[in-house]
């Protein structure tokens, strides 16, 4: 019994390490193909459209409501202390440092990451990747690399959109509905939010999450068992792993970026 447990733990661990190794080699090949996005920008633009532009609506919509909720909740708390003039700071900092990068990455993995995994997995299941390879074309370079580069460009840009829309919707609720003074809302924000500390760190988070989410999504697709069940499993794994990795990375990055012990 005990021995069985050890054996299974060992097997799982070895399996995990093997996958990690394959994923690393995969990433190396993806990056090695980078010149193709410079020589054939059309491939990059097509991918950017499908992962970036098509994700825009869900990002803007979520940012709108998240900004409004933060503004409402923040006001309720601050008004007890007579500090509602600081609402702008609260909205801006919570969105810039935390909510924009994390929620964008999570929404992106649900909207675009899952689609990437399913697309690549199905291309594998229907032998499209094998046929590309038999045409003497490297499928990683031709198919995966443009999608990867597009993804890591799209996520920080979407994060930026989230920031802008979230803060502005917070302002609409704070000023328009709750009656916080417009001047102090923006002025407090201006004095407390630092460009290179809050905004750039938020975008850096977005960039790192973008690498993680796109790497996971593309690798899960490429490594999927080429059957309909295998692709379904890979798609689920892609979204679940992305969420877990993003949240774990978020903790690490926050503790490095914003906490001085």
């Amino acid at each position, binding site marked *: 019994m005990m021995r069985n447990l050890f054996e299974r733990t060992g097997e799982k661990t070895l399996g995990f390490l093997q996958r990690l190794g394959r994923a690393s080699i995969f990433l190396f090949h993806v990056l090695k193909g980078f010149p193709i996005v410079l020589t054939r920008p059309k491939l990059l633009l097509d991918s950017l459209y499908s992962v970036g532009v098509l994700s825009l609506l869900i990002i803007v919509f979520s940012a709108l409501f998240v900004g409004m909720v933060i503004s409402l909740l923040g006001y309720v708390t601050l008004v007890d202390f007579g500090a509602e003039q600081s609402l702008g700071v609260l909205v801006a900092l919570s969105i810039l440092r935390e909510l924009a990068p994390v929620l964008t990455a999570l929404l992106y993995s649900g909207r675009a990451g899952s689609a990437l995994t399913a697309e690549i997995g199905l291309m594998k299941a229907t032998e499209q990747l094998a046929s*590309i*390879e038999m*045409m003497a074309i490297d499928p990683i370079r031709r198919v995966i690399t443009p999608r990867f580069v597009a993804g890591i460009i799209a996520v920080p840009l979407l994060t930026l959109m989230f920031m802008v829309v979230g803060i502005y919707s917070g302002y609409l609720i704070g000023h328009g509905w709750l009656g916080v003074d417009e001047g102090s809302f923006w002025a407090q924000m201006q004095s407390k939010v630092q460009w290179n500390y809050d905004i750039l760190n938020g975008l850096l988070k977005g960039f790192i999450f973008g690498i993680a989410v796109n790497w996971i999504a593309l690798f899960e697709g490429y490594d999927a068992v080429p059957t309909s069940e295998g692709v379904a499993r890979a798609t689920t794994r892609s979204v679940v792993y992305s969420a877990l990795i993003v949240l774990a990375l978020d903790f690490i990055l926050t503790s490095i970026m914003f906490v001085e012990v």
Partner: protein
Amino acid sequence: MTQAYIEIKDLTFARGQRQIFDGINLEIPQGAITAVMGPSGCGKTTLLRHIGGQLQADSGSVSVAGVQMNGLSRSELFALRKQMGMLFQSGALLTDLNVFENVAFPVREHYQFDESMVRDIVLMKLEIVGLRGAAQLMPSELSGGMARRVALARAIVLDPALMMYDEPFTGLDPITLGNIVTLIRSLSKSLGITSILVSHDINESLSIADYLCVLAEGKVVAQGPVEVVKATASPWLKQFLTGSTEGPVDFHYPATSRANDFHLEAKS
């Protein structure tokens, strides 16, 4: 036998615990059609993947056009693959591109031809398979037979010296089947393409094949010109080639005695 285009020597290959090839020796003659046959799961498609360099042998060697596949660098392998065309069973068309772009795909990837030249090449190949009129359709709008013909046009678009057909006859209606058989024969005869045909449709394959190679249980059971193989066939091979239920291969999978499974022990 004419000169061998592909030479396979003592090829062994295992997938996990399962030994798929156990020392295969095989020669594919140049400019002829060789049918590779055998029961399901005997490794026919795997053999094509070895020839295409998608799988590496555990031991032994595969050489194509005098080049050893083992230890080729990626660029050397790709250079060799430019001379190969492969027709996948599913067609494997790229689903986000239309028929024209699918056939143009290898041309655009490998050469910087101007658009009118690409158009001429693609339309000529589509004309050969009779689908010039379908150039603007998407793969989802094609029937199974049409998709396979488009895939055939794409496979020959770079004028390969070697064509590999993976189960080209499976799941086609009789008319389309006839078309594909004729196409494969005419491509081989008129262009002198060396062709390997993996299939278990015996009648269609033998009607166009010059040479026959039969695989079973990881070994080559028979190979040579079709007539010679037919004439010297073992009882097992005779049963295989005629598709008879009578012969050394039993219909029943080995099992314990019937009396045991059906509780037929005599009452006493």
